[in-house]
């Protein structure tokens, strides 16, 4: 009887140890991607520079009176369609990039992946 009790205690102790071990050595806390908004208004991207983590989402919303687009500046690696007033374009950001509106090249913005 006593032996059986000792066995139970032993199994319980081992289980707790294994649980603690798994808890400590498991994957680190998962980072949940965040969503950001860049407004296009008064011929500007606002904010003009946005710092974010890889995998975060950014949504560009045209609140200006004219048609705009959002285009990667150096190689045109990515581009939105033409955005009329009220239209938006959403993308997952995987790397830093400079972008601009190809219709109005003086409008520029920057995504900085930390």
């Amino acid at each position: 009887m006593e032996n059986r009790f000792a066995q139970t205690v032993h199994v319980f102790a081992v289980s707790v140890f294994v649980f603690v071990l798994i808890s400590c050595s498991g994957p680190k806390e998962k980072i949940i991607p965040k969503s950001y908004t860049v407004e296009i208004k008064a011929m500007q991207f606002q904010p003009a520079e946005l710092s974010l983590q890889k995998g975060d989402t950014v949504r560009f919303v045209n609140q200006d009176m004219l048609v705009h687009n959002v285009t990667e500046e150096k190689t045109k690696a990515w581009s939105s369609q033409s955005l009329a007033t009220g239209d938006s374009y959403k993308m997952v950001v995987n790397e830093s990039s400079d972008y601009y509106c190809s219709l109005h090249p003086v409008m520029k913005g920057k995504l900085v992946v930390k």
Partner: protein
Amino acid sequence: MLSMLAFSVFAIAQDKPKLSDPEVAFVAVTANQIDIDFAGVAKQKSKDANVIEFANTMERDHKAVIDQAVALAKKLGVTPQNNAVSKGMLADAEKTKKSLRAKSGKAFNKAYIDNEVAYHKAVIAAVENVLIPDTDNSELKQLLQNVVPALKAHLMHAEMLQKNYK
């Protein structure tokens, strides 16, 4: 020559007594239409991709402004009214178009972009110093205020291109 013509837009507007809202609306539409017409000349005369792209942007943006001005005038029940300022602007624009059409090649590209710089400077001054102060209706005033950043972006774009056509 072209710059002097463009600047007279502002000179005419400054010398006139206060414009009524229907007159302001007509001047605003006329100023936008004139730049659309300049763009039309550029698209006929130029083979330069940057000039054509700029002209397309001017056409699209100024047409959008006209559409919004016309929609607002309709909403407010205002009939835009022709006046001495808009007549002067149109007369100047005809002279400018004639001068532009007489040029070709690099000389045309330079003249068109130089005129765009001068014209946008003059229109920005006229909108900020004459049209906005003269406007009584708050919605029309707001529309004019909203247009200013676009005009300034056009000016910066033209100045950026101007460096290529010296």
